[in-house]
């Protein structure tokens, strides 16, 4: 199993390197049209062919992967920070604040996430610039995706609050804010780290679902979500199977994340 995990780590490292270096690796900018070659088959010039607008599919895949793979961790960081603030404080302070925070978490967890995401996304303007759509999509993922992490972090903070070293620090007269920042938060680091890494594949899949529904990142900026919309034309996909590459890459990356970070999550929990 360790060998499989190693392969997954290498694959993730290669994919991240390729998307970070997309400006150098991609043969063309993601929006550049080769009007003489729409729907072209793979060739030396276009490794994955072109789409129906004549844009290089390999370049779009690289840039789209960059959007999804860089912004999903950013959204995961945001949600982990929110969860750390709410869950960490709730677990540390206890009492009515913990009860109120857990009630809010339960309410948030009982609601199917995609419904909430769609409702809040629709409340914001839909026809916006691509960069704004990227920001809104991933900011929403981060802001709305904290609840399950919050619950785990809360129980972790509660366990630390009841531990001997915290009781001793309190007995020695350590002020509460110092105790929280110097003792509780550093000891929550394994839980926070596990929540961060496990949130990334969840956000990647959520963005893909939003993108397929036309509520994610707007064209011409590519992301895995809007690249997957190309699969809606099945006869075309059947005739040119290389168009399945975005879904193959997404499944491979999400599976690798799960393989690599499942053990970390188990250890933290």
């Amino acid at each position, binding site marked *: 199993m360790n060998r499989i995990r190693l392969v997954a780590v290498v694959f993730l490292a290669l994919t991240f390197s390729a998307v970070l270096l997309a400006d150098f690796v991609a043969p063309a900018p993601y929006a550049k049209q080769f009007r003489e070659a729409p729907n072209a088959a793979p060739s030396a010039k276009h490794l994955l062919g072109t789409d129906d607008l004549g844009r290089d599919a390999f370049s779009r895949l690289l840039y789209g992967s960059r959007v999804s793979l860089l912004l999903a961790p950013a959204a995961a960081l945001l949600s982990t920070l929110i969860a750390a603030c709410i869950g960490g404080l709730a677990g540390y302070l206890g009492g009515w604040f913990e009860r109120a925070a857990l009630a809010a978490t339960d309410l948030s967890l009982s609601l*199917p996430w995609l419904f909430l995401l769609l409702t809040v*996304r629709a409340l914001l303007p839909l026809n916006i610039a691509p960069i704004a759509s990227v920001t809104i999509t991933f900011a929403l993922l981060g802001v709305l995706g904290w609840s399950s992490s919050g619950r785990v972090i809360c129980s972790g903070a509660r366990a630390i609050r009841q531990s001997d070293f915290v009781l001793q620090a309190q007995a020695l007269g350590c002020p509460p804010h110092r105790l929280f920042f110097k003792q509780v938060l550093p000891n929550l680091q394994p839980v926070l780290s596990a929540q961060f890494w496990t949130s990334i594949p969840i956000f990647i899949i959520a963005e893909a679902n939003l993108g*397929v529904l*036309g509520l994610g990142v707007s064209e011409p900026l590519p992301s895995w979500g809007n690249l997957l919309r190309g699969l809606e034309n*099945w006869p075309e996909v059947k005739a040119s199977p290389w168009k399945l590459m975005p879904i193959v890459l*997404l499944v491979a990356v999400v599976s690798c994340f799960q393989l690599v970070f499942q053990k970390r999550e188990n250890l933290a929990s």
Partner: protein
Amino acid sequence: MWLRALPKHFLRLALTILLGGLLGATLVRLAPGFGVDERELDTRLSTQSIEALRQSHAPQNNIFAYYRGYLVGLFRGDLGFSTSLARPVSELFAERLPVTLRSVAVGVAAGWLLGFFLALPSIFFRWKAYEVFTAGLSGLFISLPAAILGLGLVYAGGPASLAIALVVFPRVFQYARNILLQSAHLPHVLAAHARGLHSTRVVLCHVLPNAAPLLFALAGISVSMAFGAAIPIEAICDYPGIGQLTWQAALSRDLPVLVNVTLLITIITLAANSLSDLASTAFARPRL
């Protein structure tokens, strides 16, 4: 014991309806473009007519008056009017909710059958090939967005409930397998094996009763998962349920529909979670 928990669950549901309604009304009230009437752009209208139009929306601008109106309507069963479909929201719900409830029920049942019965052999046997196969299969389906599963089902000609089942099954499999394995390694279960009790009897009398509370909790969560998956699947499969309605409403910014759908789904999933909680409480007895 579970009877004592019943009022608490009812109170939680009532509070959710109240708070959810208030939250929904606030979201609608604060959304960009609220209270703007497109008819104001009509060049044929005079200044007085435009002013009259604005005055007709004036009561809605007071956030508290708007709350009160929304809540009174909510308790009378008036869920508002869909701006994109030009029909009462309650009428749309009456048409579409049974469709979604049916597909979600079938999807959850099929997902549980598949997930649970793939997890069950893990406590009897230690076949490496089986573990690799089931882990690979659940890993593959957990990595696929629900919309892509829906798309696959459209091309394969399968029902929407099957796509929901394929979303639910890998989560059920992974959690159920862990829960069952934990139960199977409890000291009294090992002692029962050591005393020569038949494996089937050990599982039925000792492993499953111990795992039951957690499995019931998982059942509650799987309802929420299924409703979440219903949106992209119904939208892609062109299935006339609540999921498709939500997607259409989101694309056309039909806020009355969206807010009421969110509230309705919250109530359904909370009710499912409360039921699973009550079942967990009823089964949570030491069986040593």
